[in-house]
């Protein structure tokens, strides 16, 4: 073959490659869905924020008003303060727990993780309700205090209440993000450091901690971004000083229908999230979020790296200086027990709120006394006899089911597409599917509300399903991608050589083998929808309410034991789902 034809062939193949996406076509439904119901509404909301309401001319007035108006500016600042503090505390409390989990034997670790996950599976409204019961003026803690003759403490409707609720909600996310990084750290490296002469404090900070940094940063990023959009916790557990941006946006829409101003507020939130992501990407590479190892293991270069190492050396010195006397004070036996003891306490903090709700659901009192004066089924009766509650439950269930199916299907196709593709679009598409996780929910919800208002989807089940699917897609996508990544594609090739066509290969070989991922995706999507309030607050209403929306309305109005009964029902449903999922995921014997 001459050089000329070689060249020609090469160019031809390259041209064909440029046109062909190959397996990437499988991602097309998901891409189209996200383009219409995520990208377009969010961009339009941003567009609204720089338009004059009447003339539609370009204007920066809305932004100027936010910065100039004291109240708005304060809310902006308190949003960043609360989110930042939540991220910081979640890392501080979560790191030792994750460290402890990482060195447990596999079986015990699995059990401990189940406990850590309890708040994760508990609905936001249930969790918040529980904290109100625990921290209230006549709540569990204060009743214990006054019972023992001590003065009661103001625990609710202040910064403390908000931080308790936020950290409780974010701690599992922080721990579960750090854990995979920590379990892959080779503990022999710490031993190696010690044989090379590093005292234990140095070996920890200079080796283990530095290797766990990507996990710490990822956890910080995720908790900060998720905290930015909170409104349930600050609204119910905080006071006026703890008002957050999302609450402001909701008021602007619900009470004033001021889209442009809400858009400007949303932009602030979005920009904060984006900037955080950008900084993270600079330092660690976003790809490490999905568990792929980044090329920047050292984190940064040159000066930054040196400064980082100096800081860690200083930390090592400080902790050695601190650890010495403490160790002498407590003795080696006690020192060894410190970490398990601490971990047990944190796990109690995570699990206890869900448990407190249960006795109150069975109280005979119309108030939230703790412990209840007597036990009965009164409040379950109220719940089951209420058309409003029952229809809200049924709607939530149906919407969650539809969302789970849709999200698993769309995400499954996309995950398969990306796993088999080597296209240069791969990274971008991957990021796009994860984007709804990064963009604060409230931004998506307001954007969708605007869109739905125009195409008549407000107060419809379809509108809810679409909105929830947007929110659930990233979780489903991550769950399936994780399994597909480990899938042995030679098995599919083997099936093909044995005479199975593509569809039958998919159904008989691929799907059964990635079943675990599919079940997890379904579960995540179901629970995302079942617990979803942000979209529901705008898109559902009146008799067409969902369970979280109904709880929210009730909690704002008046706390009552029916809410506890509802919480128990919600909790039971989720637990039942988890059990079924676990059973389905287990490989058939």
């Amino acid at each position, binding site marked *: 073959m001459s050089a000329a034809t070689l060249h020609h062939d090469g160019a031809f193949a390259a041209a064909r490659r440029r046109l062909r996406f190959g397996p990437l076509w499988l991602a097309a439904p998901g891409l189209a869905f996200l383009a219409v119901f995520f990208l377009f509404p969010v961009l339009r909301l941003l567009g609204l924020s720089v338009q004059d309401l009447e003339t539609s001319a370009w204007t920066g007035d809305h932004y100027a008003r936010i910065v100039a108006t004291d109240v708005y500016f304060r809310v902006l600042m308190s949003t960043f303060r609360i989110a930042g503090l939540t991220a910081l505390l979640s890392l501080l409390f979560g790191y030792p727990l994750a460290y402890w989990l990482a060195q447990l034997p596999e079986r015990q670790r699995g059990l401990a993780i189940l406990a850590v996950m309890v708040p994760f599976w508990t609905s936001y409204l249930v969790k918040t309700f529980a904290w109100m019961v625990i921290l209230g003026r006549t709540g569990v803690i204060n009743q214990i205090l006054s019972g023992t003759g001590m003065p009661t403490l103001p625990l609710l409707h202040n910064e403390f209440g908000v931080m308790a609720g936020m950290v409780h909600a974010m701690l599992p996310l922080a721990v579960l993000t750090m854990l995979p990084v920590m379990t892959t750290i*080779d503990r*022999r*490296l710490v*031993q*190696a*450091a*010690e*044989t*090379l*002469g*590093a*005292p*234990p404090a*140095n*070996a920890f900070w200079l*080796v283990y901690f*530095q*290797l766990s940094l990507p996990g710490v940063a990822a956890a910080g990023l995720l908790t900060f971004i998720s905290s930015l959009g909170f409104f349930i916790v600050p609204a119910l557990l905080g006071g006026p000083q703890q008002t957050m941006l999302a609450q402001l946006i909701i008021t602007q829409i619900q009470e004033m229908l001021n889209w442009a101003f809400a858009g400007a507020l949303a932009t602030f939130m979005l920009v904060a999230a984006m900037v955080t992501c950008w900084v993270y990407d600079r330092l660690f590479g976003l790809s490490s979020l999905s568990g792929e190892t980044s090329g920047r*293991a*050292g*984190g940064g270069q040159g000066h930054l790296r040196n400064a980082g190492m100096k800081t860690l050396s200083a930390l090592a010195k400080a902790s050695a200086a601190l650890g010495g006397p403490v160790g002498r004070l407590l003795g080696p036996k006690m020192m060894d027990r410190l970490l398990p003891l601490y971990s047990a306490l944190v796990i109690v903090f995570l699990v206890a709120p869900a448990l407190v709700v249960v006795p109150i659901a069975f109280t005979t009192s119309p108030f939230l006394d703790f412990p209840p004066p007597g036990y009965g089924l009164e409040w379950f009766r109220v719940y089951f006899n209420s058309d409003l509650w029952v229809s809200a439950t049924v709607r939530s269930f149906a919407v969650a089911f539809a969302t789970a199916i849709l999200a698993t299907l769309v995400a499954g196709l996309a995950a398969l597409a990306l796993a088999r593709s080597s296209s240069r679009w791969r990274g971008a598409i991957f990021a796009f599917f994860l984007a709804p996780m990064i963009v604060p929910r409230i931004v998506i919800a307001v954007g969708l509300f605007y869109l739905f208002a125009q195409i008549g989807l407000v107060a419809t089940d379809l509108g809810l399903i679409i909105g929830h699917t947007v929110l659930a897609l990233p979780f489903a996508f991550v769950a399936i991608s994780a399994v597909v990544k480990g899938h042995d594609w030679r098995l599919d090739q083997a099936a093909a050589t044995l005479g199975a066509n593509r569809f039958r290969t998919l159904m008989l070989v691929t799907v059964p083998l990635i079943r675990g991922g599919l079940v997890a995706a379904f579960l995540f999507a179901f629970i995302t929808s079942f617990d979803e309030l942000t979209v529901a607050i705008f898109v559902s209403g009146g008799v067409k309410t969902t369970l979280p929306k109904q709880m929210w309305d009730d909690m704002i109005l008046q706390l009552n034991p029916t809410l506890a009964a509802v919480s128990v029902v919600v909790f039971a449903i989720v637990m039942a789902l988890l059990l079924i999922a676990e059973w389905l995921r287990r490989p058939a014997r």
Partner: protein
Amino acid sequence: MLSPLAQARTAPVQAGAAATPKLLVDGLTKRYGAITALEPTRLEVPAGEFLTLLGPSGSGKTTLLQMICGLVEPSGGRILIDGQDETRTPVHKRDIGLVFQHYALFPHLTVAENIGFPLRMRGVAPADLARRVKDALEMVHLGHLAGRFPKELSGGQQQRVALARCFVYQPSVILMDEPLGALDKKLREHMQYEIKRLHRETGATIIYVTHDQEEALAMSDRICLMNHARIEQIGTPHDIYARPKTAFAADFIGVSNIFRGQVRRDGAGTPMLVTGNGSFRLSADTPERPDGALVVRPEQLDIDGEGDNEVRGEVVDTVYAGSETRVLVALGGGEETITVRLRRGLAPPRLGEVVAVRWRADAGVLVS
């Protein structure tokens, strides 16, 4: 390939018995619940020796090594370095270097930073540190890779970095736990040579773990053969090859033909071993024992040659191994085969041919 006799070296000149050994392990033992990972063990290592711990997987080599460097706490016994009791010294204060099987290079540090780590921990001044790191890198021929991260290196290069990181701070005892286990054969042979060179150049005391008998024979001043959490035999490679004390030792090192039986004396008082394959004359200096296993190496057997003892059997296979040819001969009912090295210049026998295999009485060793 298998000519350890030719390669066998003499043991290093032993220092006077009065000199304290570099390392003394005395009654050291480790139990994990019901499992005994190491029976009470005594081991003396003179300064500058290259000692190999050789034994099958699970025989307690790693446990012994990790107790010496302090990563595992002994259930009993003492560890003395230069006569000092170091049993309770924390890991980081022992003057011991450990080279891990999978190198344990810090992935977040560059090659130079990895090598500089132990110096940093010892508070070496920056200028001095840089110079010593440079020297260490040159010693392992990696001067051009100082700025790379470990994962950007090949397996052999990573191994050298691990060696440099250990030699750079000149610990008085260096421990290596199967350091070449992850390398392919060619590279392994080269690295064996490199490690020997480092040993010569630095005069370090090295305790080296392997389960590869060829590696042990090629590298060691002495071999400490381990089995079932105990030391089976200690000696120079030549000692262990030529005078194994147990059937296990004979079987583990080199290829052996083993005949088990009862010891009798014939009329002239010559010791004989009565086995299922016939009675064999033993060498005159065989110690008194009721029974045992007779070990004869393939190169001591000869087909149709001279000898005091003879077995007959059918040739079932011939194996050409480059420098030599081995013949497998089935004895009796074909249950047992022996391996014979074909004498140079002899044409291999045909398969199925019945041959007489002979050896001299003093060639065999009777072991327990």
